[in-house]
């Protein structure tokens, strides 16, 4: 009865990307456009001059309320390759500890004429909150909010899959590990289903599965050997030890026994199956080193592709602002 069903705030009136907060509610066409745009940027990194002048004169602020190395660095590189000026703020160590509210932090940065915020925050919904409250010209990119979403990670994973497999529609994809606490898994599941894969499987013990994931279009397996049978892609999730509050698992040892990926276990997957991991890997927990460093691992490619995908998303979200038009 209440008016909560606002239109998707990620899109402008023409259906173009305005913010990138979640995969939820985005069309297959738009996701494909992101992948195609990323494809066009993938070559930039291999040039001697690794820059395009697309966002010259724009200020992009990385607002990281949670620590991150890989994501923050690749966002920074992506922004720099688009010729934007980049500001990286580690907020957990500054304003909030002085009692400043998120909204005040936001207003201060707006006053510095930022054009885009790249946000990571521990609360689910933080990026939505910032997008709802930021000045209209500002674009917000979600770099991970609580357990909710990490859409650029999901898109770089889709990019990696497409590079190796081409067509999504015939693929079976298994996601293994801590789905419950994983924003990456949530975004991956949405992206895979939107792009029309044949089957998404999630594999893990009940303590790491959120309830009601069936509604998201996945098949649940508790056995790794059964779950990776004939899959084309195996995505191993990081076992987020910092989020484990005690009784979710008996030990890392038992976890590896049951869900750790080894060359032997990988034999059940398709012969050309690829192995992915959002990083950082806990070797000997999620997978052993032979797999991580083996021929099927595409983990480091994911990192490189991350730059192209983040360039694509930033460029698309800023497109509507028009070139060189200040505010």
């Amino acid at each position: 009865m209440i008016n909560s069903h606002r239109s998707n705030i990620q899109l402008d009136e023409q259906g173009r990307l305005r913010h990138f907060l979640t995969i939820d509610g985005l069309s297959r066409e738009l996701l494909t456009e992101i992948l195609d745009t990323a494809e066009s940027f993938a070559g930039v990194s291999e040039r001697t001059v690794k820059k395009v002048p697309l966002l010259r004169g724009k200020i992009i602020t990385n607002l990281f309320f949670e620590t991150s190395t890989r994501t923050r660095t690749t966002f920074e590189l992506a922004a720099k390759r688009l010729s934007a000026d980049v500001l990286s703020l580690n907020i957990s160590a500054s304003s909030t500890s002085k009692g400043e509210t998120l909204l005040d932090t936001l207003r201060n940065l707006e006053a510095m004429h930022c054009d885009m915020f790249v946000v990571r925050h521990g609360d689910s919904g933080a990026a939505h909150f910032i997008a709802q409250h930021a000045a209209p010209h500002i674009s917000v990119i979600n770099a991970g909010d609580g357990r909710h979403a990490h859409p650029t990670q999901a898109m770089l994973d889709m990019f990696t899959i497409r590079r190796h497999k081409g067509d999504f529609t015939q693929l079976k994809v298994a996601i293994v590990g801590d789905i419950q606490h994983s924003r990456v898994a949530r975004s991956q599941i949405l992206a895979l289903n939107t792009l029309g894969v044949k089957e998404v499987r999630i594999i893990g013990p009940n303590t790491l599965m959120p309830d009601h994931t069936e509604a998201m279009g996945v098949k649940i397996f508790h056995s790794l050997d059964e779950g990776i049978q004939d899959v084309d892609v195996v995505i191993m999730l990081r076992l987020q030890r910092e989020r484990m509050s005690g009784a979710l698992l008996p030990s890392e040892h038992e976890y590896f026994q049951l869900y750790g990926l080894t060359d032997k276990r990988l034999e059940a997957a398709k012969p050309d199956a690829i192995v992915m991991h959002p990083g950082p890997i806990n070797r000997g927990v999620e997978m052993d080193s032979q797999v991580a460093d083996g021929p099927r691992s595409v983990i480091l490619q994911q990192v490189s592709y991350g730059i192209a995908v983040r360039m694509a998303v930033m460029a698309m979200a800023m497109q509507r602002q028009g070139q060189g038009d200040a505010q």
Partner: protein
Amino acid sequence: MSHPKTISILNGHLIDPANQIDEPKDLHIADGKVLAVGSAPKDFNPEQTIDANGLIICPGLVDLSARLREPGQEHKATIASETAAAAKSGITTLCCPPDTDPIIDTPAVAEMIKHKAEQSGLCRVLPIGALTKDLDGEHLSEMVALKMAGCIVLSNALTPINNTLIERRVLEYAATFDITAFLRPEDPYLNNGGCAHEGPAAARLGLPGIPAAAETVAIARDLALAEQTGCRIHFCGLSCSTAVSKIRQSGLPVTADVAAHQLFLTEDDLVGFNSNCHVIPPLRSHSDREALRQGIADGTISAICSSHQPHEVDAKEAPFPSTAPGISGLETLLPLTLKLVDEGVLSLSDAISRITSGPADILKLPLGRLTVGADADICLFDPKQQWQLTTDEMLSNGHNTPFLDCEFTGQVTHTLLGGKMTYCRATDTNR
């Protein structure tokens, strides 16, 4: 200004569920009490008459849970501001939970709240005392002293009593002195820092979930202890279907209430991380909402409360999990209850009983009824008047409600507390 001592309310339709009255009847008031229902006594010559043509006359509303935020959180609301909102909403009696600052665990705090409420004179405020000192769940409060100071019932507010042995002792002691314990059923371990119903919406939004079992585990435990100790227990703010059926089947003399918003909103309303829908217990599934409505219809749940929790703007201006839970609910208690009638959940008379005699009976007080000799606590409302809830219109200091801009049918025109007019819409229109 002086108030008329004798009033006649004429030409209205009287609904007094406790006395099974639902027909056109006049009501006559003298010296703050109901003097007569129907025809006036011979030679009665009222100082004031109210023409209630087209209006419903019902007992003033009794709200079992409304936080006034005073003392301690006056930046959110005050006794003066919230009792004004209550009067405007037809509420004549409200119970305020003990989680003020300082906590209502001493007679002094209870008396201070009552005194301030009497000063504003707009609503009868019944402070609920704490069951344990400092709401710590460890040490019994001075229950008898609190009772003597006017705490009709005691509760531990939002803090569960974790230790079952302590809960047993608390209930045994309360039973000794015939004190009703208001319990909010929640297992603290299963709650686990959640902020949304553990269901499909939370799974999708990545919000830490609170399973329905957090409530049903606590209810099972509390029911066992109610049986063991013989203490009269009232469950505050039910949210899930299993809770309703467990209470229905218990065969124990326990009572329950539900917050009005739980009868309308569900987890689906969290879409877009709407922080005004952040409430504890969380908004649950459609089937839970239907079970709560069924519980209200069959009387398993005999009271609807506002669960009023006004907040300052900043409390809701943050990412969803970091916002303060709660809805500013006083001004939607009657309209939402009337909406249940529109939606065919229960009859108008039964609906009115759930916000008048139902809660009054839980408090064991002779309120919420228009029996001759009773306090003249009266609400008059126009059942056909359409209106919209806007921040301009709200009197509560808390504007945190997901029902902003919603259209409602049925609007309070007059409120009388002990025969004294505490609200009159006609003189309020140019506000």
